[in-house]
């Protein structure tokens, strides 16, 4: 140190010294990142500029693959399904999570530990396994759901949940909600527990009942948590795959098709590498946009 700065180090020297040193520390991670993330992404982006035939490049096509998007009905259907999925996730698991967390927060520490573990359990099950479980539940012949509906005399409501075009996406989304709400409960719970309890006491003295405390204290004070979960859910809704693939693979028809299944099929089944790459780039752009947005919003609040 003394050798490097014989007199008082200037701020700029110090900065250069520090940032050079910092660079040295992050270099290994940076190299790995470039090799395994940046390069493949650039590769995919490059592939999307060519037309392919059976796994080999045929010709440079510029933005031709992107032009095809506009006339690809399946792409727009899939995108719509992703959007519906995002909205449903924002509505149900988030709200259920918020309400359950506020109820749970007032229980004893033991109940809180036990119940939050229970709620979180579905989240720990691999999505593939969750898909298989829900495939069974929804099975029209020996599935649990139809059986229960029969038991309570609502057998006429039963059906082939994942095979009928009216119910397939919603049924899948219910399964998705089951895997996600516990995460929301946990995140909300820890946020609620960090709210000063005397705010609730002051509110009850001010005349607020449970519902009013929830509405006027809990909900507004959890705004940034909701924002975080919402953006997280939106990104998840764009990139989820496993659940659909092990249950419906996008069917019936295109009723549960989402971007990832469309990409998968285009790549592996059709072998249209160029178009699959273009779809991937679009998906990446959407996710990055949401990510960037969330970073902006969350760092502001």
């Amino acid at each position: 140190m003394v050798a490097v700065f014989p007199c008082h180090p200037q701020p700029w020297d110090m900065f250069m010294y520090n940032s050079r040193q910092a660079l040295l520390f992050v270099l290994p991670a940076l190299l790995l990142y470039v090799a395994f993330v940046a390069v493949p992404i650039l590769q995919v982006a490059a592939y999307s500029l060519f037309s392919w035939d059976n796994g080999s490049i045929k010709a440079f096509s510029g933005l031709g693959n992107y032009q095809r998007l506009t006339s690809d009905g399946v792409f727009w259907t899939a995108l719509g399904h992703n959007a519906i999925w995002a909205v449903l996730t924002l509505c149900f698991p988030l709200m259920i999570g918020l309400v359950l967390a506020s109820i749970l927060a007032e229980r004893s520490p033991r109940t809180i530990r036990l119940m939050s573990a229970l709620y979180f359990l579905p989240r720990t099950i691999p999505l593939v396994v969750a898909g298989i479980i829900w495939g069974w539940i929804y099975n029209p012949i020996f599935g649990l759901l139809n059986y229960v509906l029969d038991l309570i005399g609502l057998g006429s409501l039963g059906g082939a949940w994942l095979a009928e075009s009216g119910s397939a996406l919603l049924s899948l989304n219910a399964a998705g909600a089951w895997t996600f709400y516990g995460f929301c409960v946990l995140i909300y719970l820890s946020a609620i527990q960090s709210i000063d309890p005397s705010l609730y006491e002051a509110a009850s003295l001010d005349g607020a009942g449970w519902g009013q405390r929830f509405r006027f204290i809990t909900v507004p004070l959890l705004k940034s948590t909701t924002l975080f979960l919402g953006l997280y859910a939106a990104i998840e809704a764009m990139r989820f795959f496993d659940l659909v693939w092990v249950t419906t693979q996008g069917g019936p028809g295109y009723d549960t098709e989402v971007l990832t299944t469309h990409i998968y099929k285009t790549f592996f089944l059709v072998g249209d590498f160029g178009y699959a790459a273009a779809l991937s780039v679009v998906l990446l752009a959407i996710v990055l946009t949401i990510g960037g947005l969330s970073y902006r919003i969350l760092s502001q609040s």
Partner: protein
Amino acid sequence: MATVSFEGTRKAFGAHEVLKGVSLDVADGEFVILVGPSGCGKSTLLRMLAGLEQATGGDIRIDGKSVIGIAPKERDIAMVFQTYALYPHMTVAENMGFSLRLAKAPKAEADQRISAAATLLNLDTLLDRYPKQLSGGQRQRVAMGRAIVRDPKVFLFDEPLSNLDAKLRVQMRAEIKALHQRLRTTSIYVTHDQVEAMTMADRIVVMNGGIIEQVGTPLDLYDSPANLFVAGFIGSPSMNFFDGKLERQDAIVMFRANGGFALPITVEAAGSAREGQAVVYGVRPEHIDFTGSDSSGDFAPVVSVVEPMGSETLILADHPGGKMTVSYRGRGVFNPGDRLPLTIDASRIHLFDRASGRNLRYSGQH
């Protein structure tokens, strides 16, 4: 406006009994201050009245009606918390108007009440700010404003000034007192601060270990402490205590300290005490005078520390049985090591039974 009474009120957290039967009547419009060492149950008592804790025994009445089992929001009580508990996502005006909004008060009336309270508390220019944009004193005022706007039956304060600096505390103390003189709302106020208790209270309740030791006006407690605990707790600097026993000398009963010296007493102070009884002799630092002369028989401790306070001088001194404090109204020249010949105003002293701690002056009255 309301009366409040606790009748044998008890509170236990599990097996830990925090309040062991507290009985207290607060008159309509009275300003009562609860004092006592940390953990004696002051906050618990307040929170039980507010309905934030459930009593495990006895009764609590507001205006004669039992409030046991009644939800906080039905009790019409406002509380100023030590941490103020302002809603961080609401402006000052919204904080103050929250209760009115919940009660669905007409907008015009709500605005009028908010601005009246704001004027009273000098908050007019701050109505649009958020709590985090306020200073400690301003937050404190908003917390008071939130209580005032409601015009509740009872105000509760749990150490509302303890987060303020000394100067602001003195100012707010005066403001709260003035406010009470204006509004005359029954108030119960918890504090650690001697001076707050003495200057603000109509009556002071001294609590210790979950029971009430004594209730009285500030001067009552100062002049006639019921027991050793109250005597030591009220008054600053604290009363001096000497251990010893009563002794007869030529038909005169006097106090003989364990340190060997004798101190004068009065018949009234001794009450029903018997000769030879083990007692504690108490005298306040301000009730001790200096004798000019120094004859060897006098009570003369040795100065150890001198604390000039400006208007008075506090002298910490050693005597054969321990340490004591003397307050001298003026600026004498005292040096550590000096002998300090003292006379004690026997009419102001207290004698306490060593075993029970009770003030012997009043022990005959039961």
